[in-house]
């Protein structure tokens, strides 16, 4: 029990200082019926070596993304993370600190959050960003709740290009809060169809670009239509690297931008922890969910940072709180900010262009496979294709051949009637050889 510093002598001395005979006397308030005398039915303690062995054996049963030609995207992306990022986030002072409630001794975390907020505002083209949310999907759900509070209208219109898991996350929260949702049918390139669904009761319109099929959309006209109806436009992005190449949500008229920030500085981690980016127009600052870090001065007039505007938050307002957020993804936000600092403007633009470049190669290779139809016309680093066969079966067969070929759309939305649609992403890590192997394997499987 290497993590427990008390010795039997310490315990005896402390019990005597407290004035009790045994530690059981400290549990007297537990009803006798619920006191357990023995240990529960689980293995006993294990040394470091044993634990490493057991967990390594589990890890070894997974096929890592780096061990095969790999094309999965659909909301989580595999990018190269510079070595210094993981080194810095493992420093004790960042890793083992708490929420910066005592700003005088938490300036490290606070300044990072201020830098993060500035970066996110710049990337999204909006005025104010928060200090991160759990992930993109919970951020999207919080954005819908926020739009409902601002407009005092009762309906959210969700585009058919929105990631189906995001749709479900929004619907779940909206149902609880009594907000109606109007989810349009899945479509590769139909973000603009939301315009027809806007009515007087619409609080917000949620569109995604690049969407789950990879389609990039200029949402300016949607913003105009939403605003004309007194609704807000929420733009969701699951691939934050795309900000380096494409027009920002703010530039296109978005009121709220939500993104999954995992792409920058954070690994795949089988779905989490990730980091939600959240930005909005300045006039909605006091409605923004989650933590905010603000600049101020100390008693000697020196610049410093504090958590601020927390009177919106649930730990203060109790049943008047405006969100379900009680924390942020501090460490993942730190990883994001470090990676972004290393990239800088030029690095991000180059990385984004490189991702697009790889997707161009991927698209050309897939177009050349007989029977494969590329569905996505305007793409960043991800495309959807239609196969002559069930996509899930093809993916399973290719996995057996050593290629992780992407995400069947039916995995996300089994009832959408798009069983032959496959989503594939390429990043700077996708090599020409990977693409060639995919092309060859896919050609073979389809011909069978």
């Amino acid at each position, binding site marked *: 029990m290497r*993590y*427990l510093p008390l010795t039997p002598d310490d*315990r005896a001395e*402390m019990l005597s200082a407290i*004035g*009790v005979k045994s530690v059981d006397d400290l549990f*007297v*308030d537990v009803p006798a019926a*619920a006191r*357990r005398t023995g*240990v*529960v039915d689980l293995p006993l303690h294990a040394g470091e070596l044993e*634990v490493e062995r057991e*967990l390594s054996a*589990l890890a070894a*049963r*997974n096929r890592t993304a780096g061990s095969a030609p*790999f094309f999965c995207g659909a*909301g989580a992306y595999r990018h190269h993370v510079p070595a*210094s990022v993981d080194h810095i986030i493992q420093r004790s*002072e*960042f890793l083992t*600190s*708490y929420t910066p*409630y005592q700003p*005088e*001794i938490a*300036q490290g*975390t606070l300044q990072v959050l201020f830098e993060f907020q500035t970066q996110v*505002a710049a990337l999204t083209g909006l005025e104010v960003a928060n200090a*991160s949310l759990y*992930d*993109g999907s919970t951020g999207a759900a919080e954005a819908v709740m926020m739009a409902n509070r601002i407009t005092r209208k009762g309906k959210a219109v969700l585009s058919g290009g929105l990631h189906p898991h995001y749709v479900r996350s929004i*619907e*779940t929260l909206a149902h609880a809060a009594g907000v109606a949702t109007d989810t349009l049918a899945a479509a590769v390139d139909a973000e603009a169809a939301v315009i027809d669904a806007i009515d007087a009761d619409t609080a917000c319109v949620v569109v995604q670009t690049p969407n789950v099929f990879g389609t990039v959309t200029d949402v300016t006209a949607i913003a105009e239509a939403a605003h004309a109806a007194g609704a807000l436009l929420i733009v969701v992005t699951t691939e934050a690297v795309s900000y*380096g*190449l*494409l027009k920002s949500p703010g530039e296109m008229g978005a009121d709220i931008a939500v993104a999954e920030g995992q792409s920058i500085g954070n690994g*795949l*981690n*089988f779905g989490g*922890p990730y980091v939600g980016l959240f930005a909005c127009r300045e006039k909605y600052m006091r409605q923004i969910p989650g933590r905010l870090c603000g600049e101020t001065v100390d*008693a000697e007039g020196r610049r410093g940072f*504090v958590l601020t505007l927390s009177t919106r938050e649930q*730990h*203060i*307002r109790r049943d008047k709180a405006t969100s*379900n*957020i009680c924390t942020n993804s501090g*460490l993942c936000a730190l990883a994001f900010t470090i990676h972004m*600092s*290393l990239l*800088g403007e030029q*690095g991000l633009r*180059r*990385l984004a262009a*490189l991702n*697009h470049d790889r997707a161009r190669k991927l698209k050309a290779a897939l177009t050349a496979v007989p029977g494969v139809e590329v569905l996505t*016309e305007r793409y960043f680093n991800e495309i959807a294709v239609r196969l002559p066969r069930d996509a899930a079966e093809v993916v*399973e067969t290719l996995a057996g051949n050593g290629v992780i070929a992407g995400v069947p759309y039916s995995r996300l939305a089994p009832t959408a009637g798009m069983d032959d649609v496959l989503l594939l992403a390429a990043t700077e890590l996708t090599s020409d050889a990977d693409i060639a192997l995919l092309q060859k394997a896919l050609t073979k499987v389809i011909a069978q």
Partner: protein
Amino acid sequence: MSMNSVGRPTRPEAPANDMPTATLTGGRGLLQDEPLIFELGGWDKSGVDLPEATGVDDALDGLLRHDPIGLPGLSEPETMRHYVRLSQKNHAIDLALYPLGSCTMKHNPRLNEKMARLPGFSDIHPLQPVSTVQGALGLMDQLAHWLKTLTGMPAVALSPKAGAHGELCGLLAIRAAHEANGQGHRKTVLAPTSAHGTNPATAAFAGYTVKEIGQTDDGRVDLADLAAKLGPDVAAIMVTNPNTCGLFEREVIEIARLTHEAGAYFYCDGANFNAIVGRVRPGDLGVDAMHINLHKTFSTPHGGGGPGAGPVVLSEALAAYAPTPWVVHDGDSFKLVEHEVEEASAAFGRLTAFNGQMGMYVRALSYMLSHGADGLRQVAEDAVLNANYIKARLSDVMSPAFPDGPCMHEALFDDSWLEGTGVTTLDFAKAMIDEGFHPMTMYFPLVVHGAMLIEPTETESKYELDRFITALRALANAAKAGDVDRFKNAPTQAPLRRLDETLAARKPRLKWTPVSPAPLAAE
């Protein structure tokens, strides 16, 4: 989660003590002021070498970003130095005791970090074929088994991303169960006045009206008040146990019985599970749903505010309503159920895009395996022993809020002992910083005046506890001796003096702007 002083703006006082002799450059030894990256970086500088791309697809015409984004770049050495310098302005559990009550700051074993970084866990995609992630699903299954066994509950939903997210998960399951049983009219949730602020906030967010239950003089739920408020409109009660006063709810079984008799469910806030793990199973108390903050009980790092993880254990009555996704056995292998339609289940929906906090699952299981059934029981005993030791050793100089009987894993004091000294709880906390300790949680729970909630956790040695006790006794004596300036000026030994939180809220400046506006000035 903590209520630590948030929303209690502080205004810095002018420094009364002598300023140190000024240096020639404004430097302060190793504590250098650190500019923002926006002041340090270059617009054409990068710390990453990447090849140039060859071109852009014509179809993107008109969709490209042309204007500058506004992101400075730093070379790698500049990046290292910037963030290492910033790190040195943080207090952390690896530096010293971090006695935040209700937040549970314990040692974070590095083995957990090493395991979470195994490529087999960190470099797998949430949507790659399930045949290629059997180890990950096996790990989730094993974690679920530990959580169910430790709590004595039949089911668990792993995906909630934090404690409050877990509360939401539990309440949505309760709501779905009521709706399925024709009890959809139940729209009230009862919560004690001492509840974590997240409890009423979550209940309201889930569409419920919140009613408070009073508490007794000895810091427990008032059973008579509870019985009076339970009725056909009540969907659930939310009780933290051990509660936020650091006390075990002695009548918890009776609370559960009354609740169930009234047709409502018992949600337990499991934030303080580390006080009873291995000694008490919430399932034996009549709990229907309880979230477990993996970062608190099972040592995953707080990381300056997250990520957390808040799996929720569920009773038989609620198990069917757990949100997707979950893991099931499929013969010799594991299957991931991602959609309600697959199993024709009653799942209330989905809380987040993917599988929850896998990285945290690995860390938590690593901690569980290290401690084992025997070690986890010792965890609860040492956590409780340490808190009672602090309470016993400080009771003659400070005033415990509930002097009679033992506390659980945290010791709660009020500010009556500071009466007449001119020193407030906040001042006292800031003076602790100068003595080298992170302050305890202040002004929470709200039911105790000027509350000071101290949670040492089980990973503190007697040496460190004694050091802490010595410092607090010295400060208490200084306050009583009229050494008020020490407190009003504190901290003087931190990277910054007391910060003006009022100004930050009144004139919010939430990002760096290229042209520096007029200097901030207090009104």
